[in-house]
């Protein structure tokens, strides 16, 4: 387990379960029903539906233009739907203006008010709600402490780093005790190290508050590491909604299999009911639709890099073409006769025996991820 994961687990444990349950009770669930939104001829949302339980952290993940930000903005009231409904805590807020929805939002762009210092920024939601000045300043101060900005309350946005500004934005979003927290790629403008730190902070605070959170990102690592459930979107629809492990290990569609994590696409053949032959192994077909394909059907078999072993072998069928170093691991890519590329994740030590140009054997270690029928060439 990495240091970050260990810190995360510790932080998570530190939050009292009772506290979480109490706060979760105050947090609202979220439901989007058959939402549609078009811009000119582009369907940003095309019958999008999702249901999020109170206190749950759900990430919407998908490629650019898949409609994830539109969905988030529709929840915030910053985008009007053409069709469909948004329900917060069972209340239909579809036609409610943004400022009456009582939601907290952190934006991708730095969105602090330049004319206010960190404390006044954080207290803005309470100021709007006419909370007495002393009370709101005390509350905003607590929130700034919570996001790790003790002593920086009097600083103005231009005196804060990007990470600090997003922390203030998070404090501001939470200060007025919103029913939902909406995060619109809040980490994407930050450098990798700060992004990692803030990712853990956001999750810790979300657990502490027990607040229902919808998080939009195109970064699958963020989505998988932070969320209770991940929704993978494509062309305005939800392809799959499940726990990070479900989405990663049991993708519902070949798009999800290929978008989340990385896969090698190997040629295979259905050799019996629910059985596929690939690289000389006979393995069960994981997805129902492809399991019903008749014997002899040509298929593509999607396999994760960690399910493949590439071993040096002087008379092996594959040739190593490149190796990419990632610190703890190395991603080795070999090419099979016919030009099919196979990727495997190896330890750095194992990869030393596989320089580019080396001959190698390919072996499947685990079940295949997904099987998709191959379309006949036109």
């Amino acid at each position, binding site marked *: 387990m990495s240091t970050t994961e260990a810190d995360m687990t510790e932080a998570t444990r530190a939050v009292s379960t009772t506290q979480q349950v109490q706060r979760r009770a105050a947090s609202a669930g979220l439901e989007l029903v058959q939402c549609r939104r078009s811009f000119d001829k582009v369907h940003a949302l095309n019958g999008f539906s999702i249901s999020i339980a109170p206190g749950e952290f759900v990430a919407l993940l998908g490629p650019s233009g898949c409609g994830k930000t539109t969905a988030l903005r529709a929840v915030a*009231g910053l985008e009007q739907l053409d069709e469909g409904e948004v329900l917060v805590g069972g209340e239909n807020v579809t036609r409610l203006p943004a400022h009456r929805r009582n939601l907290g939002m952190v934006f991708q762009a730095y969105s602090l008010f*330049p004319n206010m210092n960190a404390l*006044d920024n954080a207290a803005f939601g309470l100021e709007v709600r006419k909370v007495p000045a002393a009370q709101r300043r005390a509350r905003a101060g607590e929130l700034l402490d919570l996001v790790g900005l003790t002593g920086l309350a009097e600083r103005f946005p231009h005196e804060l780093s990007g990470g600090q500004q997003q922390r203030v934005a998070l404090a501001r979003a939470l200060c*007025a005790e919103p029913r939902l927290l909406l995060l619109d790629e809040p980490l994407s403008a930050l450098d990798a190290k700060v992004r990692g730190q803030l990712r853990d902070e956001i999750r810790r605070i979300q657990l502490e508050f027990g607040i229902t959170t919808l998080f939009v990102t195109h970064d699958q690592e963020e989505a998988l590491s932070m969320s209770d459930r991940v929704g993978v979107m494509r062309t305005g629809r939800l392809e799959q909604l499940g726990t990070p492990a479900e989405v990663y290990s049991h993708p519902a569609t070949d798009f999800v299999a290929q978008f989340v994590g990385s896969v090698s696409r190997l040629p295979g053949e259905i050799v019996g009911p629910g059985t596929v032959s690939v690289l000389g192994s006979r393995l069960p077909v994981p997805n129902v639709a492809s399991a019903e394909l008749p014997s002899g059907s040509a298929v593509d078999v999607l396999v994760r890099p960690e399910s493949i072993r590439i071993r040096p072998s002087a008379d092996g069928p594959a040739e190593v073409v490149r190796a990419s170093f990632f610190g703890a691991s190395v991603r080795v890519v070999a090419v099979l006769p016919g030009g099919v590329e196979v990727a495997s994740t190896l330890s750095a030590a194992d990869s030393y025996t596989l320089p580019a140009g080396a001959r190698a054997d390919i072996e499947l270690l685990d079940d295949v991820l997904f099987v998709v029928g191959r379309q006949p060439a036109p």
Partner: protein
Amino acid sequence: MIRNRTFRYVTLGLIGLYVIVPMYATVQFSLEGGYHGRLSFAAYSQGLSQPGLGSSIITSIEVSFGAMALTLALLVPTIIFVNLRLPRWRSVLEALSLLPLGVPPIVIIVGVLGVYNSLPNWIIVSPVILVLLYVVLALPYSYRAIDAGVRSIDLHTLVEAGRSMGAGWGKLFARVLFPNLRSGILAASFLVVALSLGEYAVASLLLPTQPTFPVFLAGVETSGVYLSVALSVIALAVTWGLLAAISVFGSGRRRSSAAATAAAGADGPDEPLAETAVPSPPAQAVA
């Protein structure tokens, strides 16, 4: 570095001379109205005792501040709305705002008289008609000043952040947009006030019965050259005073609110991000 600094001082000095020398000469000339080459304030005493001076200054101030208020009330929300919701219309609005520059004031007067004739009589025979026209005449400058201010901030994000925090449009304008657009608003205010205080042609044709200060000044020019120059200097001082008051009002309010915010429990507007850059008032405020 030293060369740079020298260049800066020389440039500043030359600009200073360009502005100050004519004013010094004007003041010097106005003081030579005494006898036997002695300097005296005789022309000023005579000028200040002219009947109609006070009322013309008051009319000018009313008109200029009325034009400023109407300009801000019309332009600030419009420019914000267009930038937020109708960005494609920005170029149209920009082109429209330039029209008053391409049409001579006398043509505008003839044109608008037909339109304004349908207005109630109390508008046509009062300084209100000048307010309406000065808003149009100042449009090329005021539009640009406010638009530049709006474009210098991330309007979309600030508005959406404010709205998502529960702020209605009133709160958003008062606490977020106006403070961050202060420099553009102040610049537009200066330009409208300066233009309104110095305008002669429109005022003399549309409101001859209630002269503004430039119209009054033209009327007394025949009474003596020293007198009219002394009145010009007075007009310049009044204009500067008003512009300085606007500037102090803007920044002074900011300082006091910052102090209020610094005190625990303060419940007022907050300290701004940076000092507001405001252009110098135009020197040709008075004709």
